[in-house]
């Protein structure tokens, strides 16, 4: 079989005018010229492949960088006490005490999940898990935030079951509990679903691993799966350019996952970390070997020699360009000193993981790669990893923004009678966005690892980190809580406020379970950065998020930007998805959402205003989007969180549930169904029943307070200045939600309406 001649550095130096397909690889003419300036010659085809993937939007953050700086510039004062590793590494790491640290991050796998739902979603989980592992941590839980087109659209019936099966198929086989997330539907996601996967890992506070190749003479070891032809060009083609009815052609560009290989790789790595056998480590994700070699070299001593012939291949016909771009899954790269190499290889052999020395760390400042004895790459690694192009894209407020905000929707007909309110309640609870999600979540293992204190549908997932039954310490069990939230409709109406509302909701969810919010990760899903209106949404959302994090005292530790989420020229709703991580000193004090306790008093915390802009009610009942999202008050959010955390610690409440989409009625219904208890609600004086039941005012939660603690609890709220209104009493004999003077809805009827929606749609 004849092969095309290999393009070597020598050839490139003597053929300066040879035309190269830089445009097809996603680079523009200026970027191509810059590569030539850096190298002082044209790049070889291998070098061009590497620059194209490393300078892609996905890897270089070239359009977002100038905005993301705010997360660093506005870092809250609290950060210095807890932040062990900040943005820029594979994932941020926070100190949680007891000698332990926690790392977490969320990442998108949107485009691959549209093309190939099962593999796209599966490898999304695999990728984020490897990011967490790379920090030296044992992955302990996953969550995912999913968005699809209309629930009844034919393509949603293709994409959703595949995505869910992929997340379950990979995560279950990996043995990671799936402890939460969110699923929602909107027409804007029809040709561009969002699949955002979050992973949490735990590690000794002094056991952090970093992605750098230090120490000339150290070995560069590639280990894990062999390199194959899947996912080539995934980073530059799939993640960075929008679909224009080209979906079919890109099919082979989606990677194929093997969770068993990853499970073995995890255990192998953890054994290697425990024995302290690596000086640097990097996973192979987007841009595969190109990314791992350049990032390791750029962060370390500065140089690396690699013999590409040594990389174990699944397909011997791969060209060096393909090997460099392949995104085959379940691969890692480690930097190992000569004295540790033997032990390193022994551990790999025990786990039957293929490990191959493919290169050496140098101090030349150059990344040099050879293939069949010839030099095909000779580049300064920093120019790929850190010094890519940076764009200040034009920003312009969308022309329709004023019109959108002006259409306040106050004239939309509202239910008035008890009968109408009851019908509205049923309509909302059975709508796809608010209905029971167990059709999805029952396909995920939430028990494995044996440390799941709370899982979906609780306000946040909670994982136990220490176990006194086993360590004999006698100390309370430490835990972490995580929640992810986002709201595209709010963000469309006001990106600055929308991002803060998403942050506030995740923050509130963590506090609702009794944990103290510590840190933030984000997945910013937007349309094309080349569209100034989208760029305005992005800039505003980042500004809102950075300001919000500063005000709440929770630093951003890392995240991911996903651009080009659009079909044709129509972008998705701007969707920042925010993950908040919190810590709880004693997991036995966690607050569940299930309303319980006969005779317990139900309190509403916070203020309820007439706020229906972007609400589920306007969406479900009227298909309307306009006006302004609910008011943001982060000082109030902080106060509410303090009260919820203290009430949990002091045992003042039996249950708590945050108020968000669908408002108070939905929260009460979810709590009653989970706790199998009825409630008699009283509309507070001066409040319209419709506003009371369905407004989406932020900064609110409901709590169930046992009678014995009522005085202490209300005294605490009064002393701190948090409005607490008694709105009802729990009654185990009354299996219904009764809104006094308005309507009565038996739990059985409610449950049927709530539980039937997704099974009816998806089988």
């Amino acid at each position, binding site marked *: 079989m004849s092969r095309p001649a290999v393009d070597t550095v020598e050839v490139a130096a003597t053929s300066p005018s040879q035309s190269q397909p830089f445009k097809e690889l996603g680079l523009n003419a200026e970027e191509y010229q810059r590569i030539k300036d850096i190298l002082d010659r044209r790049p070889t085809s291998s070098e061009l492949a590497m620059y194209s993937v490393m300078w892609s939007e996905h890897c270089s953050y070239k359009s977002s960088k100038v905005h993301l700086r705010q997360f660093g510039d506005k870092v809250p004062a609290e950060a210095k006490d807890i932040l062990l590793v900040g943005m820029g590494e594979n994932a941020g790491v926070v100190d949680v005490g007891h000698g332990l640290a926690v790392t977490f991050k969320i990442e998108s796998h949107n485009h691959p999940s549209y093309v190939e739902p099962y593999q796209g979603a599966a490898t999304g989980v695999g990728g984020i898990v490897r990011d967490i592992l790379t920090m030296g941590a044992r992955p302990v839980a996953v969550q995912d935030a999913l968005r699809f087109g209309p629930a009844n659209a034919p393509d949603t019936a293709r994409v959703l079951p595949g995505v869910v*099966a992929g997340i379950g198929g990979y995560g279950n*086989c990996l*043995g990671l509990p799936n402890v939460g997330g969110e699923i929602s539907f909107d027409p804007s996601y029809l040709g561009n679903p969002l699949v955002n996967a979050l992973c949490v890992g735990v590690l000794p506070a002094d056991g952090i691993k970093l992605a750098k190749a230090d120490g000339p003479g150290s070995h560069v070891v590639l280990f894990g799966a062999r390199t194959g032809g899947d996912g080539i060009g995934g980073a530059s083609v799939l993640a960075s350019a929008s679909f224009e009815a080209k979906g079919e052609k890109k099919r082979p560009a989606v990677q194929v996952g093997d969770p*068993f290989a990853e*499970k*073995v790789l995890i255990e192998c790595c953890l054994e290697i970390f425990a024995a302290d056998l690596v000086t640097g480590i990097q996973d192979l994700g987007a841009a595969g070997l190109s990314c791992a070699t350049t990032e390791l070299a750029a962060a370390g001593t500065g140089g690396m020699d690699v013999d590409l012939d040594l990389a174990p291949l699944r397909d011997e016909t791969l060209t060096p360009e393909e090997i460099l771009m392949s995104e085959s899954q379940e691969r890692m790269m480690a930097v190992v000193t000569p004295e540790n190499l033997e032990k390193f290889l022994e551990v790999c052999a025990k786990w039957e993981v293929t490990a191959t020395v493919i290169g050496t760390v140098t101090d030349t400042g150059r990344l040099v790669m050879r293939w069949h004895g010839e030099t095909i790459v000779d580049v300064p690694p920093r120019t790929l990893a850190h010094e890519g192009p940076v764009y200040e894209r034009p920003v312009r407020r969308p022309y329709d923004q004023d019109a959108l905000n002006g259409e306040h929707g106050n004239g939309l007909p509202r239910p008035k009678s008890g009968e109408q309110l009851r019908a509205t309640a049923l309509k909302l609870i059975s709508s796809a966005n608010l209905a029971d999600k167990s059709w999805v979540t029952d396909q995920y293992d939430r028990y*494995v690892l*044996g440390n799941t*204190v709370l899982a979906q549908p609780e306000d946040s997932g909670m994982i136990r980190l220490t176990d006194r*039954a086993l360590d004999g310490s006698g100390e309370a069990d430490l835990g972490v809580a995580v929640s992810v939230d986002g709201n595209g409709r709010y963000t469309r109406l006001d990106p600055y406020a929308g991002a803060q509302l998403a942050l506030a909701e995740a923050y509130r969810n963590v506090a609702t379970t009794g944990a103290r919010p510590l840190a933030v990760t984000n997945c910013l899903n937007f349309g094309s950065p080349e569209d100034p209106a989208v760029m305005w949404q992005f800039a505003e959302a980042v500004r809102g998020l950075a300001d919000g994090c500063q005000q709440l005292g929770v630093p951003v530790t890392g995240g991911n930007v996903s651009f080009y989420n659009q079909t044709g020229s129509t972008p998705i709703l701007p969707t920042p998805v925010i993950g908040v991580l919190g810590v709880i000193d004693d997991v036995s004090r966690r607050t569940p959402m299930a309303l319980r306790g006969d005779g317990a008093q139900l309190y509403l915390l916070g203020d309820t205003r007439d706020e229906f802009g972007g609400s589920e009610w306007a969406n479900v009942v009227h298909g309307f989007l306009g006006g302004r999202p609910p008011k943001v008050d982060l000082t109030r959010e902080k106060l509410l969180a303090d009260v919820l955390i203290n009430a949990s610690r002091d045992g003042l409440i039996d249950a708590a549930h945050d108020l968000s989409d669908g408002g108070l009625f939905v929260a009460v219904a979810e709590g009653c169904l989970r706790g199998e208890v009825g409630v008699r609600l009283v509309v507070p004086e001066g409040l319209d029943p419709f506003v009371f039941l369905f407004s989406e005012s932020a900064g609110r939660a409901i709590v169930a307070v046992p009678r014995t603690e009522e005085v202490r609890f209300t005294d605490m709220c009064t002393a701190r200045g948090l409005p607490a209104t008694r709105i009802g009493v729990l009654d185990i004999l009354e299996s219904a939600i009764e809104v006094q003077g308005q309507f009565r809805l038996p739990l059985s009827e409610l449950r049927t309406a709530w539980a039937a929606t997704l099974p009816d749609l998806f089988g």
Partner: protein
Amino acid sequence: MVTFPGSLDDRDALRAVRLAGAEPVPLWHGEKWLSDVQAVVLPGGFSYGDYLRCGAIARFSPAMDSIVDGARQGMPVLGICNGFQVLCEAHLLPGALIRNRSQKFICRDQAVRIENAGTAWTADYEDGQQLVIPLKNAEGCYVADERTLDELEGSGRVVARYLDGNPNGSLRDIAGICNAEGNVVGLMPHPEHATDPLVGPGTDGLPFFSSVLRALVGAA
């Protein structure tokens, strides 16, 4: 407690053994010798990625030789989920486990009834006792030919049965079976995840582990 590559619930089962008051010993699938362990738990998970067939490769692990010999000589062996699949593949138990009828992975708190409280692993229960323990599997549908099923029923070897709806299509709602001697038990739901109310639906699963401990201590 044997860890195969791809075992997932191994740590949880170790914890359950500890909570029951016994000393858990982790075993590696590549080790031939059982040293001095007195009972073996084959944990849940996806040994060898469930390649070929669930449990089909794990049964050839070096550790399985001694386990099969031990089981034939009366050593208590409990296979949970994937471990149950391994026991069927190793012919210590009859029948097989195939894909759930729904074709989907299912994770839920499952009601089961103990049908035989006479085995090494169920002596701390009472016949007919109802429990709630987590179930999580993709291939938990128990099948066997009619004659085998009749034989299992006739000799009291159906150890546990699903209540309130069969989750995976198992014939005759079978959730667990044992061998003729009652020392080898295969169970699809996960009792190790119902040993600590903080992280599971309750403590209904604990007696599986205390039963065997009592049997061993009593025999010693």
